[in-house]
């Protein structure tokens, strides 16, 4: 299954987009994995809107493509914002490395924690971020159905 969205680069629209994406993933991945997906996607989109577009609400829309197959769950985000450093995601800290009293800086660590792989390609033609999550088949037998609240 493949779904494509356009998201205006406005913070007020991020929550709704994240919830819509989660709703697509939860029946396939189950509740626990959907929570992890929601956290990572929320952090990624918020970073792009806040740091990339920096409040330029009239910027080009962000393209989001969700691809769910038996072997992979991937979210591709393409934005026309100010590029982030090429190695931003590779150099994300671990959650344990973040000071308790820091008010910011947990977003990248949460993305790192909740994904199998993060690929980022900054470009003037569009910055491409691909988040890869554990595939549905890596869940334990029946976990999908149970977590989705269906009868066994």
């Amino acid at each position, binding site marked *: 299954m493949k779904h494509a969205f356009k998201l205006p680069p406005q*913070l*007020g629209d*991020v*929550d709704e987009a994240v919830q819509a994406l989660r709703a697509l993933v939860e029946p396939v991945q189950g509740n626990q994995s959907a*929570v992890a997906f*929601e*956290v990572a996607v*929320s*952090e990624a989109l*918020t970073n792009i809107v*806040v740091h990339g577009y920096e409040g330029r609400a009239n910027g080009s829309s962000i393209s989001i493509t969700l691809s769910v197959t038996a072997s992979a769950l991937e979210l591709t985000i393409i934005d026309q914002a100010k590029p982030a450093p090429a190695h931003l995601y590779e150099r994300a800290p671990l*959650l*344990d490395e*973040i000071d*308790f*009293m*820091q*008010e*910011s*800086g*947990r*977003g990248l660590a*949460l993305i790192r*924690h909740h994904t199998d792989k993060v690929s980022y390609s900054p470009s003037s033609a569009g910055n491409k971020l691909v988040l890869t999550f554990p595939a549905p088949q890596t869940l334990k037998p029946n976990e999908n159905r149970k977590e989705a609240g269906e009868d066994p």
Partner: protein
Amino acid sequence: MIKFDTSNDDISVIVPDGERMTATNSTSFKEQIIAHVDEGNSRLVVDLSGVSFVDSAGLGALVGVLKRIGNRGDIVVCGLADSVRQMFELTRMNRIFTEYPNRAAAVAALKDSL
């Protein structure tokens, strides 16, 4: 707009508006509570029973309030949904915010700590 219940002595119960504490509303959330703290209210219970999702900005707002309170008072949380508790545990926020199952237990604990 968040709700403040100040009917328990000097303890304020804070109820966030909406089911999500994210970058969208965290700045407003933090500013409103800090204004409340600056008015002399420094013993706070944040009732998260109506919240289903907290992101890093929401956590950062709580940390900001905690830093503002400093040694003058205390801030605890209650009513965490499983998904919110997981976020607290993952980011180790559970080590700096004491959690209670509900508002009554949180208020009672703060009263006992006087």
